[in-house]
């Protein structure tokens, strides 16, 4: 019991810690992430409206009606129609409200075609940046079909753009996530999923794989940069000067299981224009990239 006053300090400490930038989800950067964060707050507040009183009443009853305290004791009271209607009614109303809110927000942030960004897309189709994302074991290949470049483990987008990603994987399932920017969405072999986000402010972020995909999974981060449109153009020109070209044959080498320890970024020029579709079709046709046994012993064993 004497611990209780100190336990009360814990939430205060937690709140103090939350103000730091480490709590990325508390600091959304674009429309999508802001809506998601608002949903988090709304849901939490609504739920706390129920949960906090319940906690208080539990503590109150638990203390007041302890044996020996001499409070009123009613050994037969176990039914009250009005109260029982209330205990069904209150959760029902909360769920009705939150359910409506949930469905509404799904359409706003829906990763394939978020309602929040439709207006901007319609007003300024030029601002849409298409990126094809291919997850390998265990790297991310970003193909810019309109800029004719590709990278490994780096996603650079111009400020003000709406980034529309098409996603697939060479062999196993994964999940892509850029905290503060892009929602999580599954990335699966032989299948196409989509993710969309806006890029209102300059900055450097880290995206990563969120769903376990084998031994090299922990090393699947990618550098994410939002740069000015001018810098973006310069960057694409620099990348397209790369002598490495990403033909489908070259891609098959890239897709061999390999953990990018040391987070080396690579650039390619002239990726195969059909690369994404070829990867999807290959997975559907049964092409796999098995993990060599040596990698299961030591993840760095095939480091180049």
């Amino acid at each position, binding site marked *: 019991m004497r611990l209780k006053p100190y336990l009360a300090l814990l939430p205060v400490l937690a709140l103090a810690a939350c103000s730091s930038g480490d709590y990325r989800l508390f600091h959304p950067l674009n429309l999508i992430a802001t809506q998601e964060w608002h949903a988090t707050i709304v849901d939490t507040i609504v739920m706390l409206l129920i949960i906090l009183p319940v906690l208080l009443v539990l503590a109150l009853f638990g203390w007041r009606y302890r044996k020996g305290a001499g409070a009123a004791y009613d*050994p037969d*009271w176990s039914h009250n129609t009005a109260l029982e209607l209330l205990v069904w009614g209150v959760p029902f109303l909360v769920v009705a409200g939150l359910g409506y809110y949930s469905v509404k927000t799904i359409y706003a942030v829906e990763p394939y075609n978020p309602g929040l960004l439709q207006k901007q897309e319609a007003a300024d189709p030029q601002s849409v940046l298409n990126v094809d994302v291919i997850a390998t074991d265990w790297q991310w290949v970003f193909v810019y079909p309109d800029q004719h470049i590709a990278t490994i483990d780096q996603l650079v987008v111009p400020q003000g753009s709406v980034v529309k990603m098409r996603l697939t994987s060479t062999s196993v399932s994964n999940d892509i996530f850029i905290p503060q920017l892009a929602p999580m969405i599954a990335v699966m072999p032989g299948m196409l999923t989509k993710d969309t986000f806006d890029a209102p402010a300059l900055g450097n972020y880290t995206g990563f794989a969120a769903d376990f995909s084998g031994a090299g999974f922990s090393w699947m981060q990618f550098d994410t940069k939002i740069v000015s449109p001018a810098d973006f153009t310069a960057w694409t020109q620099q990348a397209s000067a790369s002598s490495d070209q990403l033909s489908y044959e070259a891609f098959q080498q890239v897709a061999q299981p390999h953990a990018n320890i040391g987070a080396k970024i690579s650039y390619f020029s002239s990726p195969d224009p059909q690369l994404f579709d070829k990867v999807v079709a290959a997975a559907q046709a049964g092409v796999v990239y098995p993990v060599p046994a040596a990698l299961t012993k030591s993840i760095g064993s095939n480091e180049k």
Partner: protein
Amino acid sequence: MQVEVPGPWSPLLGRLTLDAIPYTNPILQGTFAGAALAGLIVIGCVLYFKKVGYLWREWLTSVDHKKIGVMYIIVGLVMLFRGFADGLMIRTQQVIANGPNAPGVLGAQHGFLPPFHFDQVYSAHGTIMILFAATPILTGFQNIVVPLQIGARDMAFPYMNALSLWLTTAAAALVMISLFVGDFSAAGWVGLIPLTELPFSPSTGVDYWMWAIQISSVGTTLNAINMIVTIVEMRAPGMTWFRMPVFSWTTLSTNIIGLTAFPVLGVALALLGADRYLGTHFFTAGYGGNLMLYTNLFWIWGHPEVYFLILPTFGILSEVIPTFSEKPLFGYVTMVAATFAIAGISWVVWLHHFFTMGSGPDINGFFSVATMLVGIPTGVKLFNWMFTLYRARITYSVAMLWAMFGLFLLLAGGLTGMMLALPAVNYTVHDSVFVIAHFHCMVLLVVASAFAGVTYWFPKLFGFKLNEGWGKAFFWTFSIATIIVFAAMFALGFQGETRRLDWTFNTAWKPMLMVEEIGMILYVVSLACFAIMLVVSIRNRAKNRVGADPWGTSRTLEWLTPSPVPFYNFAVTPQVNTRDELSWRRKHGLESAKPAGFEAIHMPSNTGMPVIIGALAGIWGFAMIWRIWWLAGISLLGIVVCVIIRSFNKNEGYHLQPQEIEAMEKNLATGAIVAEQPVRTHLHHVEAH
């Protein structure tokens, strides 16, 4: 027909070679030494005290629902300890392997567990905790308590009950064997598809996972049938549906879930087995396979499984809270309705385990609202427990403390569960440790109420109470450790840490990872308290002997029997007059009324068949895992032969004669324990009954 597998294969030993034994790994060397030592001590004790015969006659061949329940709980506690050891390794690896400069030993890039080993550890942790710790412990409680609560002599099918236990035990043994022979799955407890397919998991790890679950789920399905039939058919006279204790109600609903859900898992794993063994393409990405089908099938079982665990937990809370509040449960009828509402809704929410799979807003919307609906009956339950405390007379014994902590965990898990039910929120925390912290709130609610149940029903079975002082030490260390570990984990979720990371690459996570580790150390302390509690309680058992109702305020029928409960449960089948029968009888001064006379009791005979079939199932699983076809064939044939032999067994049990019962009941009254069942000849062809 056999698909190509990498590595050697011989007709005699299948894939098994000396290389399969990881004798070079220092972690496993230590584990093996510890396990071998513990095993030798147990075997040594059994031999030294000459208990082999006793163990065989009284336990291994027993069909007594109480002993089977105790054995279920022992299996569950052993596996809980193993699962905790895995959890400790996960937490320690993540805190050491933090940031790009973290040191690495034992072949790991960072930390002490290379990815392949770490992945097995976390996969084993999940598989064990859900299927081989929580499930057996709760099944054990249902076995022990339900027949007593409804006034039955045993389960409807005592032999099948023993068979369920030994199938589950064989499966748990396979998981343990995977530590020292071969490896375990490195693809998560959910079997992440297509990672579990042969090209990506060529070793026997996934096979261990798959066959162990397959065997145990047969046991669980049989047990579900048994429980449902017992509750429907074997209630004592006068026990109408709405006089049945809530724990029995939750057992009924949970086993309806079990009976309908586990076959789905069986089918999903069988199809996966076909992919791995026959070269089919049910769940591959290529050749027309559909990997999302596996994910759907798994969670069509997996989500009902969550409620399969949580409903009996709610049942335990509904027994413990009224007893220690000296009051009936508030809103009994709505409680039963809420139980079945949860069981029903549990079938239509599975997709919330993969809101991020790209199902589109309409489907996600449906499953979001369906998921939230669970919050209504769950909220009702919480309110009902809260009102049970109103104008109560609460005793904070250890069982009640666990129950109160359970309510706290339910609130924390409920709050975060409602957050995850919003896809808009889910997109930001789906595969993060926020989800891990959420469902640990829920499974630790299962653990908390399991410990409430252990404390509460222990004296009923063994005739003495567990030590309250050490019990409280165990409770406080465990619950504070829980809060520390999982508050930090929620924080890490908001910092963007995703799950299953062997290397926690972001140094900003370090402080909270440290906090989690401190909590883990406190868990170790709490385990020590638990062990001391057991030792002290057993040592002082003579001082702590109790009568029929050790708590003095119990309300249901099981407390009418003497403690420990004689093997025939009730000398005379009780006539039930009302809900909360014992408290009604106490009120009317009838709780120790003696029966006028006794009638003969028909009892089932013990049989060694279940343990033999269990052992054969274990051998069959091992043979399938290592692809030793001749052994698999022989053991499967052995099982079939055993079942046929059993079918022609004319042993229909025996009759306990009235004078014997009278003598034993007298003996009980003077404080002696009926320890051993009388050995007697079989009854042949009992007249039709």
